């Protein structure tokens, strides 16, 4: 049976393209995991400037976190499907292709940030030794 290309130009071009896109997408996301994953990493408010999150709507219980971005392929190798209780998920490893840990920035995030206790001690010390305040507020982003 002869198919008139001009008559069916729309479906003859569109259908194979959609199939190709499905295959590419499948391999990119499902097989190679070629994308960035963002999640909340463990953060110690005593040491770092953490984001403050609420456990419930009334915000009766708070928790502290950092924002971590990792390449999904690497993260999967390090932790499997679940990042909770995975030590490697909270740090950037030398083999990670893309990894960043974002700490809270008071200038940007304001009240969402916790000020570390030792930071307050340092602040007191800084005042005493006349150290610039900008050191306390600097961005703590770590990029590898």
């Amino acid at each position, binding site marked *: 049976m002869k198919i008139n290309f*001009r*008559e069916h*130009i*729309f479906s003859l*071009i*569109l259908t194979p*393209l*959609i199939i190709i*896109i*499905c295959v*590419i*997408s*499948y391999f*990119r*996301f*499902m097989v190679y*995991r070629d*994308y*960035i*994953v*963002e*999640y*909340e990493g463990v953060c110690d408010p005593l040491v770092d400037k953490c984001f403050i999150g609420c456990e419930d709507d009334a915000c009766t219980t708070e928790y502290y976190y950092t924002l971590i*971005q990792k390449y*999904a392929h690497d*993260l*999967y190798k390090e932790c499997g*499907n*679940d*990042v*909770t209780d995975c030590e490697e998920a909270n740090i950037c490893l030398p083999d990670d292709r893309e990894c960043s840990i974002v700490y809270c920035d008071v200038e940007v995030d304001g009240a969402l940030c916790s000020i570390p206790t030792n930071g307050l001690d340092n602040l007191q010390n800084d005042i005493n030794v006349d150290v610039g305040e900008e050191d306390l507020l600097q961005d703590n982003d770590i990029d590898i």
Partner: protein
Amino acid sequence: MICYLFSEPIYFLFSSDVPALLYYTHIPATLIALFVGFYVFWNGKQFLLNRLLFVISIFFSLWTLSTLILWTNIHSDFMMFVWSFSGLILGSISIFCIYFMYVFLSKKDVSVRLRLFFLTLLSPLLFFAPTSLNLSGFNIADCDAFNFEWLPFRIYYSLLGAVAMIWIFILLVKWYRISEFAFKKQIVLMGAGIELFLFSFFGMEFFATYFTKIGLFQDSELELYGMFGMVIFMTYISILVVRFKTFNIKLLATEALVWGLAILIGSQFFFIDVPLNMLLNAITFASSIILGYFLIKSVKKEVKQREELAELNLELNDLLKQRESLVHLVTHKVKGSFTRSKYIFAGILDGTFGDINEEVKRRAQQGLDSDNGGIDTVDLVLNADNLQKGAVKYEMKDFNFKEEVERVISEKELSVEAKGLKLEKNFKEDNYNLLGDSFWLKEVVNNLLENSIKYTKEGKIIVGLNKSEDKILFYVKDTGIGITEEDKKNLFTEGGRGKDSVRVNVDSTGYGLFSVKLIVEAHKGKVWMESNKEGSGSTFFVELNVA
């Protein structure tokens, strides 16, 4: 990677972490779209318009399925895979809606150039869909990828929705101006349906995402309301199918209604939690299916009978036309034969063929009388037929009705005397001028008086005239055989002859009183008959308007 803050869905699509509205908006809309799309496609696969509607319903269903997956699932790999098609699906809906409207309005396929242009519009969505220019990452804490969508890509496919709305609107206005009235109604219905669908679908989707992105809303719940647009669109499509047979489908309104209700009730199974409600819904669903089945069956039977009747009516009309031409042919032939023999008998009587003896003269006179009677009968039938068809043109003039009555009486005096009857006039002094056709009203008087003479064996005939303000009442009262209650029903009907009338007058055609009725009614008058109170006989009344 799984979204660790959310729980795994049950049966792939059911999760307690999503708004209940999600299922209520998505499932009925999808089922209705799929049902209508598939029904239209199945009943007219060969029509491009049907195929395009099916494609739109498939893309819409893919969209609802993908949003259901994105709302309920927690596996980032799979969600990224599904999310990557969002733009392509939305863009395809826009382009196919434009394509669909072109075919609906012009009733033919678009040019190859335009189809290539459609592909060109879709190409950025096709080529960038699996790349980082569409999606680059996923937030497993929030379980979405809003912050990793490339803004120009997102704007592009949202813009395609707006372009589709404007493009279709321009097409609608253009075609509405040049189309015939009947098609204009279809344009309005289809236009309203598709524009409402595009507006609610793309508008809600755009605003939901935009407001979520700028932090005004916590999630994009607003987009759920956009799904109602498809239900509206499919309702308009159903109206077009039922009323205008669009898509070349014969569908009864009852069928559409029953199936629509069944889908709505059936889709409730997906979002009912309480077992008792589930049971009640199951009973309602089963009842609506069973009752709907019988309802459709009986309506179909009725429709079939109606169609058969309509067909029979058409056949009957054809037969009537054939009969009419046959009657005309026969009557003209018969009248021609009567006329020819009439002139022969007349020639014999006036000596054209030489001297004849008394016996031949008597026989020739009988032949002439018989021919005259035959010609009168044929004329009666022909006149009745012409009057019934409306082929007679009345010349309405002011004339004295009483004079015409007097003229008929004088013409009938001989035959009245010959039967030994007495003819009395009962005319009240007044002006009997009226507006009408004197020739045909004389025929009325002639007919009624002729009937009275024929059906009265002995006694008298009274012809009367009365006037009251703007009405003239003419009547003929006789002491004839009268009319039975059964025969009264057939009076004034076409070919209506009473049993007694046939016995008394074998030449009765049944067209005399029928003609009288047609002529009187054409003069906006009334004709009726009453049996005499004082004994045998009857009275025929004719009431005419003066002006």
